[in-house]
């Protein structure tokens, strides 16, 4: 199916997400849609898939103009989208998720289950219709969504950053099925990504967006530099990483285990030196989150021991961790970290350790203003935190961190941030590292882990598979490791 998007325009408040974008996609080919975070890729694809409506512009399928009021209508017309986080219902079984929204014509559930397994077999996927979706890996949930869209008659398939958080094997399987769909079944495929290598590997042609505008289309493969020049304004060169200071052992974990109803972390032992960066790699829910949260005192240890600076910590919990100079930054900034409804000044007063009964508002306002200047936050002391952009929220979170921390624990420190904020944040972390602060972070972005860590621990199925020095591995190798292949 041929797709034409003509002068699509979409504005959110004062932000122009799509500025008169016109692109065309031909059947039987795989397209890349490239751009930084916030370039407008997702908005454009949400418009094509009926999730959002454009302010202006039209969608033309095989020469006929279309108007989609909902994703259902788009799918009926042949356009299906696979969202970054699969839009399924986790408590439903695989079959229930397959059935939800499927035109049935009196089809019985057993027949649907059969149709599902047959379809899965065609693309080399394995599904158990009666398993609960929440028990599946991200990659499997993605496969299920893909099958649902195909069963719904999708001729145009949009995949939004599909390789984040899946293993290398699942990625290979996904790419193979995408090739089959385009080459053999003549479908139109669109891969939304900010990863150049993936697009080069898979796609025939790439459109590049920047700040809401279409800045070019390139026949692939082509030199990477060509794409980079299109995607980014001039970038300041990434500052060279400081060498890890060889400090004393700061954190010493011996055979620690963590137990939650969903997952058990099998005994983990490791050591971290002051100033060292430990990256935790693994599919979502492989145990790395448990380790990080246990170090923060947010989950109790069910076995083993934790020593900080040589001192055993038998009753480790979060307040104690804070007292000992351990900071924890969660992935969802507005859910876990900042408080919507409070101003920047109120945040400062909240974390200030002032002991008086009453708040000294002028002093806290001044403090907030200082931090805003130092950390280059776009905002005022009276701004409500939720009105800041994601990058500025993350900057302010860093501004609130106390000085002289021993250990910083982070989940997805740069998720959703543009490249400038990402570099800025790692620069800040580097400075703290030079002062002897150790860092443990987890990320779904294997490139980030490979580039920013000194040591990398790979998790699979609740086990620490392997701990390797970062210099001895690559993102690609990590991709194969996290799938559980040894």
């Amino acid at each position, binding site marked *: 199916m041929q797709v034409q998007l003509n002068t699509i325009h979409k504005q959110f408040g004062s932000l122009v997400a799509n500025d008169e974008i016109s692109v065309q996609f031909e059947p039987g080919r795989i397209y890349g849609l490239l751009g930084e975070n916030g370039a407008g890729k997702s908005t454009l694809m949400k418009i094509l898939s009926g*999730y*959002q409506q454009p302010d202006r512009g039209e969608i033309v399928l095989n020469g006929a103009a279309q108007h989609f009021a*909902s*994703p*259902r*209508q788009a*799918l009926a017309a042949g356009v299906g989208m696979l*969202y970054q986080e699969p*839009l*399924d*219902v*986790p*408590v*439903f079984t695989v079959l*229930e998720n397959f*059935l*939800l*929204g499927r035109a*049935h014509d009196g089809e019985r559930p057993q027949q649907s289950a059969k149709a599902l397994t047959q379809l899965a077999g065609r693309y080399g996927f394995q599904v158990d219709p009666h398993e609960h979706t929440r028990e599946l890996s991200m990659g499997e949930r993605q496969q299920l969504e893909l099958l649902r869209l195909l069963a719904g008659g999708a001729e145009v398939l949009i995949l939004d950053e599909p390789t984040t958080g899946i293993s290398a094997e699942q990625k290979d399987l996904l790419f193979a099925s995408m090739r089959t769909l385009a080459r053999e079944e003549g479908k139109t495929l669109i891969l939304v990504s900010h990863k150049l290598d993936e697009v080069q590997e898979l796609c025939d042609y790439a459109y590049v967006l920047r700040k809401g505008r279409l800045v070019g289309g390139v026949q692939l493969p082509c030199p990477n530099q060509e794409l980079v020049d299109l995607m980014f304004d001039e970038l300041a060169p990434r500052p060279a990483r400081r060498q890890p200071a060889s400090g004393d052992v700061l954190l010493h974990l011996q055979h620690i285990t963590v*137990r939650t*109803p969903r997952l058990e972390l099998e005994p983990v032992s490791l050591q971290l030196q002051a100033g060292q960066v430990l990256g935790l790699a693994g599919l979502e829910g492989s145990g790395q989150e448990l380790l990080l949260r246990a170090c923060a005192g947010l989950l109790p240890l069910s076995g083993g021991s934790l020593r900080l600076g040589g001192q055993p910590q038998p009753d480790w919990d979060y307040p104690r961790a804070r007292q000992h100079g351990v900071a924890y930054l969660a992935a969802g900034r507005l859910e876990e970290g900042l408080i919507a409804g409070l101003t920047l000044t109120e945040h400062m007063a909240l974390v200030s350790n002032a002991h008086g009964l009453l708040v000294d508002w002028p002093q806290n306002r001044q403090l907030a203003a200082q931090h805003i200047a130092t950390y280059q936050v776009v905002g005022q002391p009276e701004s409500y935190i939720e009105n800041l952009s994601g990058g500025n929220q993350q900057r302010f979170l860093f501004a609130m961190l106390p000085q002289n921390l021993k250990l910083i624990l982070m989940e997805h420190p740069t998720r959703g941030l543009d490249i400038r904020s990402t570099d800025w944040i790692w620069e800040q972390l580097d400075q703290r590292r030079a002062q002897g602060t150790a860092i443990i972070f987890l990320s779904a972005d294997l490139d980030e882990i490979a580039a920013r860590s000194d040591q990398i621990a790979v998790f699979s199925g609740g086990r620490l598979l392997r701990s390797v020095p970062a210099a001895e591995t690559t993102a690609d190798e990590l991709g194969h490791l996290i799938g559980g292949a040894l």
Partner: protein
Amino acid sequence: MDSTQLIAIFGSILLQSAPLIIAVCGETISERAGVINLSLDGSLLLSALAGFAAALLTGSLLLGFLAAAAVGAVFALIVAFGSLHLRQNQVAIGFVLAMLGDSLSAFLGQNYTRLPGPSVPAWHIPLLKDIPVLGPILFRQDAVVYFALLLVGATWWFLFRTRAGLELRSAGERPEAAFTRGVAVRKLRYIYAVLGGALVGIAGAAYSLDVKIGWAEGHTRGMGWIALAIVIFGGWSPLRGALGAVLFGATKALATVLQRSFPQVALVAFNAVPWLLMILVLVLVSGRLAAPLLARAPAALRRPLRGLLQAAPPAALGQPLDDN
């Protein structure tokens, strides 16, 4: 106590629990679709009055039940409108309606207090009523009890075995996913909130026309809150919810029986049983107690135990809808 007495007690427990079962089913439907209707206590009171007054004035039981259902539906509609269209807090609206229903029933009911009125006649089902033990308990009842029993099965079947039920649950679990699959989330939430409210209304009339015949101020006061707690205890399943309602009815019946053999003062203690029970079961099904218990249980037992003890509410329960 001989067996006939025991069977009579079981029969009366079922009768006493019937309105609660109906209300629990109604609220379960509403909450599964994502709408908390906290107005139940006021809604039950006003619908009990409406049912009684309408049946008394028209002489028709059916019109009584219909009037009651309409009252319950209107209360639910207000909650749904306030939260789905005006994006206001469901809990606040529900609470105010609970209070308002109480005062409205007190004011409007002042001329209906302790009047004799119509009641649902017993209706023994031929053949089935002669089954030993089960016959007298289950089939020598009246239409309200049969309706409650059928409603439990029908609600369960609808929620978990039909496509419409699948769509209903998706609206309460993950509305954005439901939306991408063409489910009209807002419309469904309206429909099922109002349907659930109508069932609550019918439960109100079941009190005033059958189980606790007549009207007096505060006639069903407290039962709405108990029904809401039973929905939680029931883990948002009509089967477990009905079980909870019957257990609740049984402790009340037990209290009534024991009360005869104890002096006057102990009556207070028996009246306290439902509320103590409410606290107890809510502690029991809350994650705080269940999670450590489950973690210690042998692996083989963990899954069935989790099914029995833990109950996660619908993930999007009470959350406003996001229109892009």
